[in-house]
Every structure is written in C-alpha cells, then in structure tokens.
C-alpha cells in the first residue's frame, strides 16, 4: 500500500529504458503511477491532478537531453516540480517599524499550536529578538499552563488572563509594548474550520491585534481534509504562511503540498520533534524527498547522526573497507548500531531490502546480538585481533565464558571470516561488489536448501535506479555523483572503493557526459 514513489519511479524507468524518446502513452502510464503515489502520500486529489499536468508540461516541453534517458527525465521533472511548488517564493521575515511584530497562530485542535508558539519564541530569541508569548487558548483545559511551562523553558515571558480570548490578545499586545518586546506571538485555541462561532472569534482576535504575520499550523499527518481546512482559514484570516508540524513522525506529509497549492503562501517553518530546539526554517528539497518516499532512509540517517559516535563509526568504517576489520571493531560497531534501536526495525528502514529479508527482520531477537557480543567479550585481546589462534581449548574457554556452546563460537568465527573476505573483495579494484556478494550469501542462507531468495542485490533494476538518481542529483554539468564525499587521507579509503560500497556494491561506472 505504501509503495514509495521511488519504487514506482524505478519501475517506470525500467519500462522506459532503451527508448529513444517518450511516447504519449509512456508518459500517461508514468503519470498515472505518479498520481497514485502522491495520493498515498496524502496529497489532495485536485492538487494531484494539477501537479501531474505540470509534470506533463515539463516533460513534453523539454528538449530531449542527451545525457538523460527518458525515464530519468520524467523523474527529474517530478522532483523539480515538487521542489518548485513546495518552495516557490520564500517569505522574508521582516520586523515592524513600530515594534512589536505581531504573530498570530491558528489551526485545528491538536495540530501543535502551543508547542509551535514556544518553539517560535525560542527561535526568535536565538535570532537576537525579544519575543513574548500570549496565551489566548482559553478553551482547552490547561493550555495556558502548558504555554507557561514551555515559555519558562524557552526563557520567554508568557502573558494570559482568564477573561475572553479577544481581550487576552489585546491586553497581551499592550503588555508586550509596555515591556518593550519586539515580537509578540499569540497562541489561539484549536478550532474547526466549520465552527462559525469560533472562526468569528479568531477573526476578532486578528482584528484586535492586527498581526503582521498570520501562520496556519498544519499537522504533517493530515489527509485530504487539509485543503478544506486551509482554504477556510485563509478565507477568514488571510494567512501569510504555513508551519508544518510533526515531521518527526513517518507520515509522508503530502498535506504540505496540498496546503501550499491551495493557499499559495509559503511554508515558513518545519517542526521536527518534541524539544523546543526541533524547529527550523522549511527546506523544500527535504520535503520533496519525503513525499517521494525517501524519508525512511533520511530518518535513519538523522537518527544515526543524533546517536552514533562519529569517531568510532569512522574508525571501524575505514577498517572495514580496508579489510582490517577485527572482532573488536565488530563489537564496537554493534554497540553503535544498537543505539539506533532494534535491529529488526533498522533492517526495515534500509532501502533495498526485499520482502523476505524484511520478514526475517521481524524474527530477529535482539538477544542474539548480546550473545555475539558475549562471545567476543570472552576472547582475549589477541584472539580478537587474530582469531586464527583460537584452538580447541581456547574455544572451549570462550564458550564457557560467554555461556554459549563451542558450535556457536565456531559459527561466529566462520561467519566473521566470510564477511572479512567479502569486505576485502569489496575494497579491491575491479572486484565484484561486496554488497552484492554479501546479499548473495544472505539470499543463499536465508533461503535454505532449495530456495534461493531474491535478496538484497538485484543488479538489474537497482543499478538502473541508482544510476538514474545519480543522473538526477548531479544534473547535466558534473560527471561526479554528488554523494561522493571529499576524500580525507588517512581516515577513509580512496573514493573509488567507497563509491562502490555505497552504490550497494554494483560497480556502475559514472556515465560519461
């Protein structure tokens, strides 16, 4: 059901492979797939229609590029169009000549207005401003209390009083003036767009404080209703921008596209977590990736960034690739990976995992990892570096020490040796891709006797896509895939080797352009 758009694009690219040019029928079929994927990402129907037409125009109008295949061209058009629609004109935040600059937040219940208000306050504080928060949500029990707590966390004054929302807003603004604050953020109660009384109320608040900026707060999980809500709020309040929240979930966030299209105002901020600091200006390219279904890997990378120890990872990475990977490194690495969460969960996040591998991932018991760790920990430092010295008596000691059997120890040593071999192969020039072979091994093992599995590496389709994505990413100009990190002597192996690894082991030379 949640086929990522990237998956569909890959299939489209496969079909269009080898064609000199795009026929109308090819394009129709590709666009139908694209619109299904957008619907699954919660983009509103009308917006989907408009979007696919725009992509069509791009494809038909564009001159056939020499360096891109037709499939690549369609995908490039989709991505470009997404970024264009999501980005558009950015809102340049200016400040009122007579402070304070007044900001009004509105939205449905539970979209995250109160938290966003506090995040905004902290953001402005970091910009060197002196914000103040006004709690005009007198509807929800303890909403003002919540704002006070968050305000205290951000170190920002919070104003509210138990009267009515319009008076609170007006008094709050007066208070901000009195205190000489230059930004005044007004939080309002959540309301439904069809609740006339409450919509009138928010309009009255707006008239009372005459905000310089009115932001609609939209939950990234919102479905088709986003359009109705956004246009109703826009009609009542004349929005200046949109703030998308809850991007730390795994919703694709197609609502952002819908709202942007319908309201025609820029998405200004993105809220990505529960902490006050998890808030930043909106990046259209990130959102485009997310809608296209690449958010899973991204969230993994982000999680890795947060939790993994760079030094340790870098060290074992370079060792791994140079074939000097020891059992000691393995345990270090395992500990880093464990920080990311359960292995099964990680496996599912990784791209390029087949259904069967995913199914196997479900059955992984994280205690197995502990057993591996226990075995290695029961070895002497010398044994960890040079497993070949492990003889029968050492093996027995290790098994006893780790509470496992000698068979388990044997198994681990054997597998480790095989992996080392593979990694060495991956590093060597002209060797077949390590990951491909690794996955081959994996397929063989998992499938057991008789049943080979289509595991990680299916060089045909995957290679096509990665090549293709490279084409999109780097544009026509450079022949260098952008992913290529700058080579750092001493810490990382030569670029060529790493390159192969990252491409999932398929040695596909960059296209000559």
């Amino acid at each position, binding site marked *: 059901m949640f086929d990522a758009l990237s998956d569909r694009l890959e299939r489209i690219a496969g079909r269009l492979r080898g064609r000199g040019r795009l026929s109308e029928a090819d394009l129709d079929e590709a666009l139908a797939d694209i619109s299904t994927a957008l619907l699954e990402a919660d983009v509103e129907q009308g917006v989907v229609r408009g979007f696919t037409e725009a992509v069509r125009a791009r494809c038909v109008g564009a001159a056939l590029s020499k360096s891109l295949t037709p499939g690549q061209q369609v995908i490039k058009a989709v991505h470009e169009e997404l970024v264009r629609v999501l980005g558009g004109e950015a809102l340049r935040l200016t400040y009122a000549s007579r402070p304070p600059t007044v900001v009004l937040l509105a939205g449905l219940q539970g*979209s995250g207005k109160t938290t966003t208000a506090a995040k905004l306050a902290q953001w402005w504080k970091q910009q060197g401003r002196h914000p103040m928060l006004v709690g005009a949500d007198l509807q929800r029990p303890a909403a003002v209390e919540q704002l006070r707590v968050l305000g205290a966390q951000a170190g920002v004054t919070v104003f509210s009083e138990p009267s009515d929302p319009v008076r609170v807003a007006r008094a709050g603004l007066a208070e901000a003036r009195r205190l000489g604050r230059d930004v005044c953020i007004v939080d309002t109660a959540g309301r439904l767009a069809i609740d006339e009384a409450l919509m009138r109320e928010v309009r009255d608040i707006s008239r009372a404080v005459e905000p310089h900026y009115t932001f609609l707060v939209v939950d990234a999980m919102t479905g088709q209703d986003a359009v109705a809500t956004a246009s109703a709020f826009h009609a009542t309040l004349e929005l200046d921008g949109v703030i998308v929240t809850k991007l730390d979930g795994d919703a694709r966030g197609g609502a952002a596209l819908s709202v942007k299209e319908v309201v025609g105002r820029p998405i200004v901020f993105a809220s990505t977590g529960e902490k006050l600091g998890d808030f930043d200006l909106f990046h259209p390219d990130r959102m485009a990736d997310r809608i296209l279904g690449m958010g899973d890997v991204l969230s993994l990378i982000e999680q890795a960034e947060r939790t993994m120890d760079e030094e340790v990872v870098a060290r074992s990475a370079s060792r791994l690739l140079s074939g000097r990977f020891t059992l000691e490194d393995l345990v270090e690495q395992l500990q880093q990976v464990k920080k990311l969460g359960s292995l099964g969960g990680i496996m599912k996040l990784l791209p390029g995992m087949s259904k069967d591998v995913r199914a196997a991932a479900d059955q992984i018991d994280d205690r197995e990892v502990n057993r591996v760790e226990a075995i290695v920990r029961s070895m002497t430092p010398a044994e960890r570096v040079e497993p070949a010295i492990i003889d029968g008596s050492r093996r027995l000691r290790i098994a006893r020490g780790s509470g496992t059997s000698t068979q388990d120890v044997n198994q681990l040593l054997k597998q480790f040796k095989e992996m080392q071999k593979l990694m060495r192969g991956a590093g060597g020039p002209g060797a077949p891709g390590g990951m491909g072979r690794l996955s081959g091994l994996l397929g063989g093992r998992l499938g057991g006797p008789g049943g080979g599995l289509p595991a990680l590496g299916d060089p045909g389709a995957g290679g096509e896509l990665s090549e293709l994505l490279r084409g999109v990413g780097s544009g026509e100009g450079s022949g260098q895939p952008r992913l290529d990190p700058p080579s750092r002597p001493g810490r990382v192996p030569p670029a060529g080797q790493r390159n192969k690894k990252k491409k999932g082991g398929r040695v596909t030379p960059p296209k000559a352009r």
Partner: protein
Amino acid sequence: MVVAWIVISVVVALGVVTAVVVRTRHRPPSFEATESPEHPFEVEPSRPVEAAAPAGAVVEVRPAGWHDGLGKTRGAFSSLRALRRQTDLDTTGLGELRETLLGADVGVETTDLVLATLRERLGRRASGPGLLDALRAELLELLGQGDRTLHLLTEPGVTNVWLFVGVNGVGKTTTIGKVARQQMAAGRSVLLAAGDTFRAAAGEQLRLWAERSGADIVSGAEGGDPSAVVFDAIQRAAARGNDLVLADTAGRFHNRVNLVEELKKIRRIADRPPGAVSEVLLVLDATTGQNGVVQAREFAAAVGVTGIVLTKLDGTAKGGVVLAVQRVLGLPVKLVGVGEGPEDLLAFEPDAFVDALLGA
C-alpha cells in the same frame, strides 16, 4: 543464530555505509540519498493482533447505552443523510465514487479494492441508481460486525485498566476525560492515571477533567517515569476499590523506538496483578491521512491495540482511514469523538459513519 548473525553482518556493513554518508555529507540529504531501493518500503503482512482481554468473565459495556438523549451528532449525521438524498444518483459513476472515497482518506488501495468488488458484483449494472446503495452495503460489510464493545473483567481482586495510546495531538487526554465522565455516570468508580509525564501541563489538563467528572486521579512528577505513575494508580485503585483505571500516555510517534519501548513497559506494568489491561484504545485523529494505517499497525504490534477511538469527527474530515485500518488490521472503531464537551463521545455506528462518508 545463523540468521541473526547474517543479519548482523549486513546491518553492520550498512551501518558503516550510513555513517560514512552521514559523516561526509554537509548539506541536507536530498534526492540522491537513496542509492538502490530495489525493494523499497513495503507493507508487511498484517500481524495477528494479540488479544488484549485475558480470559475470564467479561462484562460487555455497551457504549450505545451511554448516549440516550444525546442529539448532537445524530443530528449531524442525519443532516448528512439528507445531503445524500440530494445527490443525483444517476450521474454518480464509479469515477465519482472513487473521488468521494479518496477524498475521505480511504486510501488508494482500499478504494480500488472496494470498487473492484463492486464492479464484479454489479457487472454491467455498475452505474445508475443502485450504485450508491451497493457501495454503501459494500463499505458496511468491510467495516464488519467487529467487537465494538468495551470490556471489563469482573473477577474479584482484579483492577481493570484501559490504556490510551496514540501519536501527538490526537486527543488522548480529552478522550480519557470524556470516558471518565461516562463511566462515572454509568456508576463505576474511575481513577485516572496521568501517564503523560512528558508534555507540559498534560497532568494539569487531566486533573481538570478529573475535577469535572469527579474521578480520582494519580499523577507523578513532570518528566517522571510513566510506568511508575500507572503502577501507583493501580495500587491506589486496588486499595480504594476503584472499578477502573484509565491510563493516559504521552503522545508518541510509532517510529521512535525508545518511546515505543517505554509504552510496552507501561503495558507490562499495567498487566501485573492486581491490574489487568482489558482495553488498549488507539486514539486516531479523523483528519489523519494514510499514516493512520501505519500508526495502527505499529501500535498494535507493540501493545496489542483492542480498538480505535476516532476523534475530531465533528469537522469536515471523514476519517475514512479507519476503513483501511479495519481491512488491513481488523481493528474496529469503538468510540467516536465529536467535540470538546464532556458528552461529545459516542459509540461508533457503522451506518451513520458510512452515510457521512458518502454524504457530503
């Protein structure tokens, strides 16, 4: 061991790759970040949902009985019925039905499946007046008869716990407030466990609801261990002889591993005698799109959800994603939230729901 080891080696290798990418990349990840999704994100087969109600005498609490004399949403639903009558059935083709379903967040796959079944059943008559009624019947069948009652164990010495879970901002605390009020009105003594120790003032919000309904409440320190709060609440309830503990939890995204682990722990603690978890209710926001299915699947896998509470159905959103949830996971909607007032919580009625879905 073998399987695990292979998997580990792959994860290690890919972990390294990820790390290298992370380390060397200075710009935000973008389009080319996915290198080789030969088999990108796929839905795993629906897992059997663990039955949460333990064996024992089960008292069925019929939510339907709660709302006699409650006209608000009935009114809303019947106005939608009227709207439906106005629809010109003759011009309603399958394409239009598809748009209606998609617009209600039913999702592409479920929509196309329903329409395919419909086409098969009706054959050439797949147009004209009977179409909408046939679709209506089809949707009702999809929703099925599922168990929509709320369960209470009646064994002596057992303290019933209803656990409320969900992502951020769907209305868990508000729902608990309403459930507390209704259960108190039904003559049960209720104790609220303020298990949301994370969100600022969530405990305060629940305390106000406790005041309104006259329920007891146990809360802990902000930032404290929610399991401890739930444990204390059950001990207190057992000592005082409360019939039911309603446990609030902090909103959490199902993809945050640590927070899901925390939730599993809460459930384990709540199930420890004298406590017994007789309902795990997932609160879903009606405005939620297709992510609702993912939420339901992940929460069900983690804590064995027994039913859905669909909130904010008083707006323009139709909450059609619960059709997909029911189809894929077999989880029934048990309660419906239709406003902010204490009485705005209703038993789920498939008929009214489907009418509203097709109506406007």
